[in-house]
């Protein structure tokens, strides 16, 4: 549903706005993967407006978020497709990150409050928990805002990726590959090709490894710790040349998510 024609628009399949670029290597006319389609805007009166606009993802912030959503077949009934547009809604990234961090941070409120008989002060039907995720839709959605910077050795353009739009290392790696690397020769079903690709970043077999800087300032290989733990400690990402990642454990074996005792970044 993202691209109109699956068969010959393999590049658009990948894509989420992978611009072919000024170097005209891949065709003389610039095409852009479209994040927006008319279907995304049920309220749209004039399709001409959207069809004439090519929204290419540029700083890569929302592309990561958009792809999983589209692959889910748009089952989500949400009329607001704001999450699929880069840089929309226009809220300063500082504010977005701040909302996200507030939602994420563990609150040791329980320690600061005794079980109080003064219920009149905190009289909300949802209960006493300030950040009760079940009821606070705002907080839940705010979790979707966690941009960290990503840089790649050899590519001068930094990007930001929304970590909270991902639920696993696979989708993150998938999105990063999409963001920085494009396959020249998609084989038939472009999406299957991509699904296989990210594991290369993770299992150390390719020329690049994915690393991250944690809260302590140390650079670690991505994939060592459970996803949730990674989310709470990651500060930024770097796709490093394997040759320069010598200090980090060089691994050729499969990642074992259960090996929690290996590293505790906190």
């Amino acid at each position: 549903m993202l691209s109109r024609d699956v068969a010959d628009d393999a590049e658009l399949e990948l894509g989420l706005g992978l611009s072919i670029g000024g170097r005209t290597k891949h065709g003389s006319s610039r095409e852009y993967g479209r994040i927006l389609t008319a279907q995304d805007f049920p309220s749209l009166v004039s399709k001409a407006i959207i069809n004439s606009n090519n929204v290419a993802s540029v700083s890569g912030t929302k592309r990561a978020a958009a792809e999983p959503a589209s692959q889910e077949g748009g089952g989500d009934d949400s009329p607001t497709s704001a999450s699929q547009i880069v840089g929309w809604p226009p809220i300063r990234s500082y504010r977005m990150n701040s909302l996200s961090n507030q939602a994420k941070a563990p609150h040791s409120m329980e320690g600061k409050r005794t079980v109080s008989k003064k219920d009149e002060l905190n009289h909300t039907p949802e209960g006493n928990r300030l950040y009760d995720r079940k009821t606070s839709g705002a907080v839940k959605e705010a979790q979707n805002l966690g941009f960290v910077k990503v840089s790649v050795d050899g590519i001068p353009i930094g990007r930001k990726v929304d970590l909270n739009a991902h639920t696993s290392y696979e989708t993150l790696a998938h999105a990063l590959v999409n963001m920085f690397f494009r396959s020249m020769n998609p084989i038939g079903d472009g999406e299957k090709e991509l699904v296989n690709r990210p594991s290369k970043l993770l299992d150390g077999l390719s020329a690049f490894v994915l690393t991250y800087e944690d809260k302590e300032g140390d650079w670690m290989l991505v994939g060592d710790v459970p996803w949730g733990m990674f989310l709470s400690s990651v500060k930024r990402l770097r796709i490093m040349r394997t040759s320069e990642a010598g200090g980090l454990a060089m691994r050729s074996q499969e990642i074992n998510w259960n090996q929690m005792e290996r590293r505790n970044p906190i």
Partner: protein
Amino acid sequence: MNYFPDEVIEQVFDYVTSHQDRNSISLVCKSWYRIERLSRQRVFIGNCYSISPDKVIERFPAIRSLSLKGKPHFADFNLVPYDWGGHVYPWIVAMAKSKVNLEEIRLKRMVVSDESLELISSSFANFTSLVLVSCEGFTTNGLKAVAANCSLLRELDLQENEVEDHRSQWLNHFPESSTSLVTLNFSCLKGEINLAALERLVARSPNLKTLRVNRAVTLDSLQKILSWAPQLMDLGVGSFIHDPDSETFYKLKNTIVQCKSITSLSGFLEVAPYCLPAIYPVCSNLTSLNLSYALGIPASELIKLIRHCKRLQRLWILDCIGDKGLEVVASNCKDLQELRVFPSDPFGAGNTVVTEEGLVAISFGCKKLNSLLYFCHQMTNAALITVANNCPNFVRFRLCILDPTKADPLTQQPLDEGFGAIVQSCKGLKRLSLSGLLTDMVFLYIGMYAEQLEMLSVAFAGKSDKGMIYVLNGCKKLRKLEVRDSPFGDAALLADPGKYETMRSLWMSSCEVTLGACKALARKMPMLNVEIIDDSELTVDEALCGGAPVAVTADGDDKQKVEKMYLYRTLAGPRNDAPEFVCTL
């Protein structure tokens, strides 16, 4: 022409403080130009690439205060790659070398390195004031240098910057002799703070009027700080959670009652609703209240709080206050001038918390309203027309409908008429942000009526080049135009090339502009920098082989569309710090 000696004229000029007025003065005649430039102390450069630092120093040798803006506004929304530029370091180097007596630096959307901060702290003996807004690139180490070396520091104001925490204990580095602080705002810092050092610093700063702390400052510590600084006028609270039955909380309530000068309250980066009543005693004096970071406060609590704030002039709030809450604001806050309603749930499906009804209620109650930023899920033409009639004093009107091309839900029509009413009624409108379904009509109205408009933000709007042309032709005072995802192309871009020399900048992204047209414009207007920003990616194979991307050049096919273009007038020529993905044509 001069009937008075220069010194007298200079005295007169001292009363002229606005930058635009001083610019006008300097155009009157040669001797006024000379007197003005030698006496100007406050210099404002809206685009750091429009002129070189050396030229600024040459023209204004008496400069004491430098204000600079760097990245284009859309950088706030991640539309500009973060290595684009906007570095302050060359400016600091130039100022330091020339030995000007710089006292104040105010930066917005610039890249500030620790090196820059260190250089500032060591180069200017009388340095008193550092204000950084939406900047990045520095760490707490840079702050350490400023704290330690700027012995006359009065103002350290960090607003919404991305600062890396290196656990530098920077606050400890204010020397014991430092007693001059008037403003200290570190609310955006994410790391820990030595609370004892902060308390001591506040205790020895009798002139402290503004204090905005970060999340690491607990309610406990806040109580102690406030007991040292009852003279505070502007307080930004960090963590506001505590057991309301505790002794600490009791003490806090009493301490707050003593702070009779507080007129501005903000922060609440972490807050429990049951703690809010502690601030009720100061609410009646409040003219400014910012709860836009206070997630998790239910509407009922917000409403209770607002009822105490009868003197409010500025309110920044989250949309969970709801339409009903805004009705309470409308009936309580008759002096309200500025309202900002932020979405607590930007990607949500629309628990429609605020709609056009809230805004209409506000317009009936708050007749002095002149500045608005309103995020909502829907808007109607009828509502906008009502608002326009009720509030003709808008200077800033920024409406963001979260679904960017949403029509009027009542009529399915575009919102052209609604915004048209706004520009027709608000004769003093200087800044406008559009959203919702919009055709070329809205731009026709803007061109016809928005005579004072200086800044226009457009997203997903318009039908043809005519839209943009109406604006360029009609808005004589236009300084900044930023457009994204709209069908404006070469005809619009090239309709009036001379116009861009009267403006600070133009941003167009995801529009229909081609490389050829940009080149033509650049050729025609040598006083403009026309930058093409190109986020090309490497192919996998190139990356795997350790390849580096080819720099963006102007050699592409002229017919290809340009993804992002940023042009600005400049006296400095193409900039020499442009990264590879930026090409100045």
